[in-house]
């Protein structure tokens, strides 16, 4: 049952979310494999989901959970488009290295 939620418990969840966001950002900068770079953006989506639900839980507001549905939508759309692009680039250059893709034209 819904009980009240202490602000320090909220900050615990927000800090975990911030740590995941930072790891995702570092991964996006550090990795050179295109697919792993997109996985790191998905990691950042996850951290945003935690933050949304935690704040929504604090205010007894379900909009936070609705936002997670939209995050799922955007993540699915992004995965479909990004992976189609990656397959295309891999077919063209035969590598997944982000460094080799300096121009996005055929």
């Amino acid at each position: 049952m819904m009980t009240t939620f202490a602000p320090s418990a909220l900050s615990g969840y927000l800090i975990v979310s911030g740590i995941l966001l930072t790891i995702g950002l570092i991964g996006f900068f550090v990795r050179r494999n295109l697919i792993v770079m997109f996985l790191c953006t998905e990691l950042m989506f996850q951290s945003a989901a935690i933050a949304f639900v935690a704040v929504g839980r604090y205010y007894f507001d379900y909009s936070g959970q609705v936002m997670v549905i939209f995050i799922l939508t955007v993540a699915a759309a992004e995965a479909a488009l990004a992976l189609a692009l990656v397959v295309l680039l891999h077919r063209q250059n035969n590598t997944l290295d982000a460094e080799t893709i300096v121009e996005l034209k055929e």
Partner: protein
Amino acid sequence: MQVSMVAIGVAASGWLIGIVTGSLSAFSEVSHGLFFIIFSLCAIAAAIRMVVHARPIYCALYFVLVVISTAGLLLMLEAEFMAFALIIVYAGAILITYMFVLMLANQAENPEEPYSQAIYDRIPREPAAAVAVGFLLLCLLTGTVTGGASSLPPEGDGASQWYVLEKLSQQFETNVLEIAPDFAWPPISEGGHFIQFSSSGPYIVSGEGTVLELDEVMLPTNTQMVGWSLVNDFPVTIELAGVILLMAMFGAAVLARRAIELTEKEKRKVILGHDSEEVGDDR
């Protein structure tokens, strides 16, 4: 160099565990805090392993672990629907797409060494700059969170949940008549709401003046509340989400389409509309 790196790593993880266990006392139940620590440490460890692993397949698998830990955290936050939706959609659908593409694209570069990793999976790009940026971001985030937690606006009182129950009139009536069969339905509306609040909790008053205390068991479930919020508060956004998915489908179909190379004979067939054999050799 190695020793100092390890020392920094140990110090960082010590700080991490300290800050996470420091929030343990905030939870009303000990088991809640315990599960919070287990799930969050699991998520962070899997995320770190995912970022540093050289094999992309293992990165995807570690990301599944991150998703499952996140779902555990959402369960702790009493968001059951979203927790399971996350597992089904993320771990079940999106990650499978990633695995497919990884298998498609990740052939061994060097046939003599089939298990060697590609050079771009082994050598990082700008690690020092990335860690500096990440450190700054983490400083800002934790500073904001720990500094701002004391000055938050007051938390909600949960009254909005009861007002949703009012709008689900059929369920409201059934629930009330279940615990009090001789309650004279409908209750008196006061200030636009059937449900009133006293210090002992929510209650309703019938037309005959009987007062009925409402139990929290009668509240709508998490799925009902999310559905209500989705269609009541965000009707346009859900349409836009549908449009985004449609556009992504079109985009992926257009991008993945392979241009077919036609031979001379086939081109002639397409242009003339019939088999080139019948045209004869007029060359």
